[in-house]
């Protein structure tokens, strides 16, 4: 029931801004100058520099008051050196000449002190990247007062309803540059805003959360109203016995479950035989209504259009109507697996290879209300919590429901119930999807943001019940 913000009304101001009066913010040009200095200081055969400047602020509230309110600025300068077929990385947050020379020397020293890595590929030369617009001035310029005023409204609303509000309102921006001694330069700038709210009553709670690059798309009052209604609708929860139920999972719940699949799509995970897709590629695993892409260019997605080596990210069809079709590959993995790089590699050196970080599920046209109306007896889940993998190949996950779990009877929400523990095979779950909502940018707690739909699934396995 979380409303997906309409993005059309937002005005994009992607002008590069000069450093703020306190000098804490860096522009892309500032970062490129630091990168140029490092490339001059390094005497390694090849050198790669990744620099990011992050400014984040977060206003945190509980018991209808702000109890934490923080801001941070961090700079990370990370240098990878290649020496005699070996590579290593060193990082600092200092930008004086001595520190930059030292970080170059540290990367080279680490590289020299390890066995040769025959599969190491030469660094990439200049690349072309598809443009993405993920920097919104309104987000970057949001003030503590802006966040506090919104939080104060939400707290007042909760007080008026004799409820208690807790949550966060955060805004931030990151500027980053990736450059190397072969002439590659990649730049990215993006902003991020997030509002999450839990509304509590003595024996119930409700929750809502939204995330967008554009703070103007975040509607704290509307989100708080959703959480408030869920809390009041789930008062005096009854205990329902555990078992297999038709279950309606709102997008946040779907996100936190399917998020556990993302690394299984890595070529390296299959090479290492730790993917649930080992020996299952090309076989029908899910229902016809499940297709999954990795698509950083999707309008509801986030992140840079290049990977950790600066290779351009490609859109990849991972699952086609229930059949896992493709994996993603870093450059070295692609060579090992006789495939083509897809632009999903992590910064080198690393042991994990790559992963799709921008999953987009195919959706449907059913609303959560449609799902409820069509359900004779089932469970409606707002949010899941503390999800962990029980069986990596069967892909059994365990976790808890939280902050708004309801019994559905005869097409209507019949009231709140005590929270369940689930132990669910996710491969089976994606074969049992009866209805899908429109794919939305969902925000949860266990996974990074993805574009996923609400789902109505058969036979979801709730194994135990807790005391609230």
């Amino acid at each position, binding site marked *: 029931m979380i409303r997906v913000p309409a993005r059309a009304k937002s005005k994009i101001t992607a002008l590069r801004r000069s450093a703020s009066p306190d000098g804490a913010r860096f522009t892309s040009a500032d970062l490129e100058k630091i990168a140029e200095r490092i490339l001059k200081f390094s005497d390694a055969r090849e050198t790669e520099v990744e620099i990011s400047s992050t400014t984040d602020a*977060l206003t945190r509230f509980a*018991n209808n008051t702000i109890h934490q309110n923080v801001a941070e600025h961090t700079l990370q300068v990370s240098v990878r050196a290649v020496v005699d077929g070996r590579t290593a990385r060193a990082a600092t947050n200092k930008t004086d000449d001595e520190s930059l020379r030292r970080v170059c020397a540290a990367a080279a020293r680490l590289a020299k002190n390890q066995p040769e890595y025959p599969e190491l590929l030469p660094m990439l030369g200049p690349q072309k990247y598809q443009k993405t617009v993920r920097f919104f001035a309104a987000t970057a310029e949001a003030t503590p007062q802006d966040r506090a005023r919104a939080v104060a409204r939400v707290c007042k609303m909760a007080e008026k309803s004799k409820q208690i509000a807790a949550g966060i309102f955060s805004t931030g921006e990151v500027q980053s540059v990736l450059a190397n001694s072969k002439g590659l330069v990649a730049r990215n700038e993006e902003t991020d805003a997030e509002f999450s709210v839990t509304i509590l009553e003595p024996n119930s*709670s409700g929750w809502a959360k939204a995330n967008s690059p554009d703070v103007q798309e975040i509607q704290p009052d509307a989100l708080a109203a959703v959480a408030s209604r869920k809390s009041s609708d789930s008062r005096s929860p009854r205990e329902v016995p555990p078992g297999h139920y038709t279950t309606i999972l709102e997008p946040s719940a779907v996100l936190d479950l399917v998020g556990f699949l993302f690394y299984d799509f890595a070529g390296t995970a299959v090479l290492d035989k730790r993917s649930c897709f080992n020996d299952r590629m090309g076989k029908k695993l899910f229902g016809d209504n499940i297709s999954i892409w990795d698509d950083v260019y999707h309008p509801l997605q986030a992140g840079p259009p290049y990977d950790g080596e600066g290779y351009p990210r490609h859109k990849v069809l991972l699952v086609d109507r229930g059949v896992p079709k493709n994996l993603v590959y870093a450059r070295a993995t692609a060579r090992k697996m006789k495939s083509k790089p897809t632009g999903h590699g992590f910064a080198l050196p690393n042991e994990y290879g790559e992963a799709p970080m921008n999953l987009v599920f195919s959706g449907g046209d059913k609303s959560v209300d449609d799902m409820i109306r069509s359900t004779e007896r089932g469970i409606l889940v707002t949010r899941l919590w503390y999800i962990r993998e029980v069986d990596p190949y069967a892909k059994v996950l365990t976790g808890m429901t939280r902050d708004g779990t309801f019994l559905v009877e005869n097409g209507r929400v019949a009231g709140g119930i005590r929270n369940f523990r689930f132990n669910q095979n996710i491969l089976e779950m994606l074969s049992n999807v009866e209805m899908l909502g429109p794919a939305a940018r969902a925000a949860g707690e266990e996974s990074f943001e993805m574009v996923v739909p609400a789902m109505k699934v058969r036979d979801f396995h709730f194994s135990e019940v807790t005391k609230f």
Partner: protein
Amino acid sequence: MMQDWANWGIETAKLRGATYADARVMDIRQRDISTKNGEVGNLMETETLGIGIRVVASGAWGFASTDRLTREGVQACAAQAVAIAKASALARRKNVALAPEQAHVDTWQNPYLKDPFRIAVERQIDLLLAADKDMRRVKGVTLAEGSMSFRRIDQLFVSSTGSSIHQLKMQSGAGMVATSYAGSEIQKRSYPNSFGGQHTLQGYELIESLDLVGHAQRTGEEAVALHSAAQCPEGTGTIILGASQLSLQIHESIGHPIELDRVLGQEANFAGMSFLTVDKLRKLQYGSEIVNVVADARLAHGPGLGTFAYDDEGVPAQCTPIITNGLFTGYLSNRETAAAIGETRSSGTMRTESWNRLPIIRMTNVSLNPGTWNYEDLIADTDDAILMETNRSWSIDDRRYQFQFSTEIGWEIKNGKIARMIKNPSYSGITTEFWNNCNAICSRDHWTLWGTPNCGKGQPMQTMGTGHGAAPARFGNIKLGAAFAK
């Protein structure tokens, strides 16, 4: 310079109207090494230096941090912290009140024998690769992984009430994992623990004491043998938990629920709350009478990841009785939450991940005190049970009642003897019922202070290391096998 930076921040905050201010300057150096299937995976060194300034102004909290360590940069950061505090006052119900704490001026460093940053990287890599090779010698091991990490934290705390505390901490950690994929199953074994192995406030002497190479072959053999082991039964029965698994049980079902910020609702939106409401203090029978748990940050407790001399609010390390003969007797608190429940002093548990993050209540070393049993006697005394070792999955609800754990390996105990291997062991229950079913705890000879390096809490999320001492212990009437039930 650290003292100058901190002083600039405190002075500026006071000039801008702060009624209280503290500053943490932290200089952190880290080395991470990993290997996989005979090759180096990650090899990285990181250094980070900055200042975090926390203030009370207009009766509300503000915090800002920066790595721009010029006078202007630090002063701008302090001014920003005050401006944020004044914004916080827009949604303030009452003024911040802190339990009293006297000023402390001190210097402290944890003892260690060998500086891991002075040990050649080549030697560290060679050790991991030797263990990797021995794991892969075992037919059926499809993935061998090893890791080491070292962290040196040089930090200065200065407060507007006169404290100036310099601490230097050295942490080390290492571990390895053998994974085997066969048929339709992935099994794995970790040594000496999952979560990257063992981590303590020590130097390289920890790594040498672990003898990774000496345990590599057995680790690989057990991973492969699990494929042909019997499945953990479903039902109700007795379990004996190995010390490392019990340390995580303590972490999740005692350590988190005793955090007073959770109890008072401050973590309601993310980490959750706690069933340990303040009316339960000194009234709830948390466990059986043999259960005694302390939160002990003092060096005397051991070189745990929760060991220090002062917390990040300038409060000295303490030992707080958490469970005394089964009775719930104490919380983890800070100056603000202690005052909120009428306690006269913080229990000294405010900790921050780095200079850019606000200190929050964190576990220190939350440990189960040793019991009286010799391990061999405990096994001999047990007719029918499953011994479960090394955590594989873990989950607990947001008020810390209902949990489910599974471990990498189990062993059937029949008639006082360890019998066949069990795969996919799991157990679940309700926290207080579980601890009240504890009927035997092994002695100090079997007690280990385990390090959990990856505890996440707070918004923005902070990762913190915590310590948990435990010896193997036995629990009756436990639900078994729910994780794998169909």
